[in-house]
């Protein structure tokens, strides 16, 4: 990637200088690599004195905070509060033996309620989706697990929304707070999930409450950002109007600003729900019950049929919640004409109440409508297994050959090559890329991200992560970008592709692991395939968006000059779409980093595996060090690609201005 990057920078940069600093840096990198045999060992791998015991320091700090300052008492008190809420939702949804001891609510009642909610928010189609999901869960005998999952989300999502809202408002109100918050959010959003979990285990323990807490922590950042964004966008006229009607500061905030920012805030709520679902499976590593735990067990037992069924359930829940919360965000408040009767204004509520009572009575008479017992549940596991096995018999010679070829011819040589490079070469290349794209500042920023990784002592593992991400994103680009170009050919096709991408992005990341484990078993190639598919989605999406978002005048100009379709694509559309494409690459890398860490449970050899060990040993220091290493890799790539994108965008604008 760095080669094309440098070429491009060359065409953008000033050509009058014979030799630029970044070229010198690149030459230095080259010399270091070629002369590896002559280098002192301290330049090949970070020398002992350079490696600092960050993990011991962090552990000491955590011990101090936890035991000497007694923070553990506070966190456990908070956890007890959360546990109380979980007990209530747990009792209502699946009859956990806790206060108020009235549950579980019969599934038929939930079915009626969700269908009505869907109808109220989005008409018959949403009603069918919501009702169908609930029906599937109940009939397939997955009620209890699904309700265990939902009972945690039902607590985590509101807490997260509230926390995000308050923090967002505070950041909007106090600039200084925002300045502190922003880098924290950046790091938080690029930290892998496992890294969060270890401190949570230390401070909260394991079990559903820990699952809820880690879910909250993970889902707060987008809410904060969107609240902030919404409040920023409130037009000053609206605020003026509020002031003129004599509103106090508090009234201005609660009655004017927040309602005006409603759409952004509700999209934030949607994001929170989706992030909660993304955590469903991962949080089961620290004791979150429900679908995630079940899926993990089934996958680990290599029982593809049941795992597939649970996967479908998780996807259905994700898509339903996504569509419902989006419909809610887009809904305009309804105003009734004065004089409408109470019953008319609350028509849907009344219908719901009637149906719910009917369903409840039915459940009292026929137990099947209360809870579907283990023996009564339908299962597709048998047929799915049969289909999968038949399919595998056909493709396994092919996948086996592919796997062998990829491992022997591509992956191992590439991995060995990356591991062979002296770390100083990597540092020089990174600095050169930074310098080429954003001058000495960017070079310093990049070094500030990567040098600490060298100082942690996890260099080799980090390079294996880099190799996996690099390979996966490259392959993803090889088929994702042509896919995107093809899809952008027709507006209707583009719309449909974007819809598919949207839906794929609502799938919790773990889902992607099911089919690859099926096809490739537990191996390097399986990891790569999962990472690749996951990373391809944003690439397709941004390619389509970049190509369809071009102003028609530009294309017409090309046509008038007699450009063929290929020429138009090559010389006009792709260059103009390039900045958007870079944003796609950026997301793709982020997704890949997340996925590669999650894939640790298939058996990888990189930072993710070490992180899983750290989680097992509840070694906070090691876990956070590894987490920061991954976050820094992500932030470095983010910095480089965003700089590049900005640069190309201004270049394009200038060129357009000249034309």
């Amino acid at each position, binding site marked *: 990637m760095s080669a094309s990057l440098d070429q491009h920078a060359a065409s953008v940069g000033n050509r009058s200088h014979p030799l630029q600093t970044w070229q010198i840096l690149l030459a230095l990198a080259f010399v270091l690599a070629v002369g590896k045999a002559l280098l002192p060992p301290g330049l090949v791998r970070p020398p002992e004195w350079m490696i600092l015991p960050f993990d011991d320091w962090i552990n000491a700090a955590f011990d101090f905070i936890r035991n000497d300052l007694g923070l553990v008492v506070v966190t456990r008190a908070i956890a*007890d509060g959360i*546990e*109380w809420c979980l007990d209530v939702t747990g009792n209502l949804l699946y009859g*956990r*033996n*806790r206060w108020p001891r009235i549950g579980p609510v019969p599934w038929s009642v939930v079915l009626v309620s969700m269908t009505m909610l869907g109808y109220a928010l989005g008409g018959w189609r949403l009603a069918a989706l919501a009702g169908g999901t609930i029906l599937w869960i109940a009939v397939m005998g997955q009620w209890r697990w699904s309700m265990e999952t939902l009972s945690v989300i039902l607590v985590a999502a509101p807490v997260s929304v509230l926390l995000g809202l308050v923090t967002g408002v505070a950041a909007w109100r106090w600039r200084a707070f925002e300045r502190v918050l922003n880098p924290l959010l950046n790091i938080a959003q690029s930290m892998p999930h496992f890294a969060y979990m270890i401190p949570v*285990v230390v401070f909260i*323990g*394991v*079990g*559903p409450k820990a699952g809820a807490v880690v879910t909250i922590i993970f889902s707060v950042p987008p809410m904060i950002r969107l609240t902030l964004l919404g409040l920023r966008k409130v037009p000053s006229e609206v605020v003026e109007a509020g002031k003129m009607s004599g509103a106090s500061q508090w009234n201005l905030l609660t009655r004017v600003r927040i309602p005006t920012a409603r759409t952004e805030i509700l999209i934030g709520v949607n994001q929170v729900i989706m992030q909660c679902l993304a955590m469903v499976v991962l949080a*089961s*590593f*620290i*004791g*979150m*019950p429900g679908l995630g*735990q079940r899926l*993990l*067990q089934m*996958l*680990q*037992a*290599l*029982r593809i049929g049941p795992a597939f069924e649970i996967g479908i359930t998780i996807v259905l829940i994700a898509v339903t919640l996504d569509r419902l919360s989006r419909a809610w965000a887009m809904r305009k408040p309804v105003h009734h004409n004065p004089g409408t009767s109470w019953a008319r204004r609350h028509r849907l509520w009344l219908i719901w109440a009637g149906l719910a009572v009917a369903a409840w009575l039915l459940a009292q008479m026929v137990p099947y409508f209360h809870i579907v017992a*283990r023996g009564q549940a339908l299962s597709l596991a048998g047929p799915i297994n049969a289909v999968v096995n038949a399919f595998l018999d056909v493709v396994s010679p092919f996948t086996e050959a592919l796997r*062998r070829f990829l*491992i*022997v011819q591509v992956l*191992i040589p590439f991995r060995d090559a990356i591991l062979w490079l002296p770390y100083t070469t990597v540092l020089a290349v990174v600095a050169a890329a930074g310098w080429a794209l954003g001058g000495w500042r960017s070079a310093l920023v990049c070094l500030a991200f990567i040098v600490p990784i060298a100082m942690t002592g996890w260099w080799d593992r980090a390079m294996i992560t880099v190799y996996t991400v690099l390979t996966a994103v490259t392959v993803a680009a090889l088929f994702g970008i042509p896919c995107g170009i093809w899809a952008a050919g027709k507006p209707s096709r583009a719309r449909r592709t974007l819809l598919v991408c949207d839906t794929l992005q609502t799938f919790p990341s773990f889902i992607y692991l099911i089919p690859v484990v099926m096809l490739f*078993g*537990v*191996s*390097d190639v399986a990891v790569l395939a999962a990472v690749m598919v996951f990373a391809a989605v944003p690439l397709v999406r941004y390619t389509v968006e970049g190509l369809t978002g071009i102003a028609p005048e530009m294309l017409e100009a090309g046509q008038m000059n007699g450009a063929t379709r290929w020429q138009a694509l090559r010389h006009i559309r792709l260059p103009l779409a390039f900045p958007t494409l870079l944003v796609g690459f950026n997301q793709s890398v982020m997704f890949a980093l997340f996925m590669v860490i999650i894939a*640790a*449970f*298939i*058996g990888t*050899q990189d930072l993710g*595996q070490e992180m*899983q*060990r750290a*989680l*097992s*040993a*509840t070694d906070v220091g090691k876990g956070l060090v590894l987490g920061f290493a991954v976050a820094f890799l992500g932030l470095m790539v983010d910095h480089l690609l965003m700089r590049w994108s900005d640069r190309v965008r201004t270049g394009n604008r200038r060129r357009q201005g000249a034309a």
Partner: protein
Amino acid sequence: MQRKACLLAGAAALALSFGGPAMAEDSSDPIIIPIHNWSSQIVMSHILGEMLTENGNSVEFVSADSQAVYEAIRLGDVHLQVEVWEGAFAESFDAARAQGGIHAAGAHDAITREEWWYPLWVKDQCPGLPDWEALNACAEIFATPETGDRGRFLGGPVDWLKNDHERVEAMDLNFTVVNAGSAAALWAELAAAERNETPIVLFNWTPNFAEAVWPGEFVEFPPWEEGCLACGHPADGYLKIAAWDGMQENWPSAYAILSRLNFTNPQIAEMARLVDVEGLDPEDAAIAWMEENEDTWRAWMN
């Protein structure tokens, strides 16, 4: 919550001891049983769950990391663990015991061993086994594309925290450790190897169903000593039952059942077989086992 309940129970017990003979009643709070990632533990947990439910207790299961669980028991977040393997968990268990809050409520008759292991067909291809030096001498027959010319040792999931990497380094073995993601992945690889009688050496343990399906032997490493790296795991390890200190007070009758629990090697292997070979759900396997062995577990009930 638990704390409070525990305090209340303590206070009530105190009050009663002055007022007359104390009736030891189990608390109505649920007993939380952790589930790990190998079959016999899951099935045994469900068997215990069924027994406690019959005893009138309320029971909940949570999935938990098999190392982190001892810290969780110590704090009273989960309340017991039915399979504490010496080779894998003695370290975490002892560390938690040193801090207080957790103790061994009993021990199974079963003798455990976890070690590098090979199926019998390997023996013809590598003379001199089960000696570790012989194994090391023919390391290259275990090579795979991933490991190049070094042999592959297929280890268990990383959260079992085995010291295989350290051992390979300390003993200078010609092997690369590749960790499988789960126990099932180990069996899948073993079954695949069986088809062509491909040489394979992997992590295995007893009691386990695998001994019945694939006859094989453990590799003999230098015997285990406290803290050694260039040696094997203990050859006759214990299998204990861990419990939270507050358990006896909160659920005396459930605790009594727990401490009477005592399984043998064949029984544990059978539990694993029901899931790993027969393909039953762990819950169903627990019921199936209990139907077969009614006398065994009835004897442990109150």
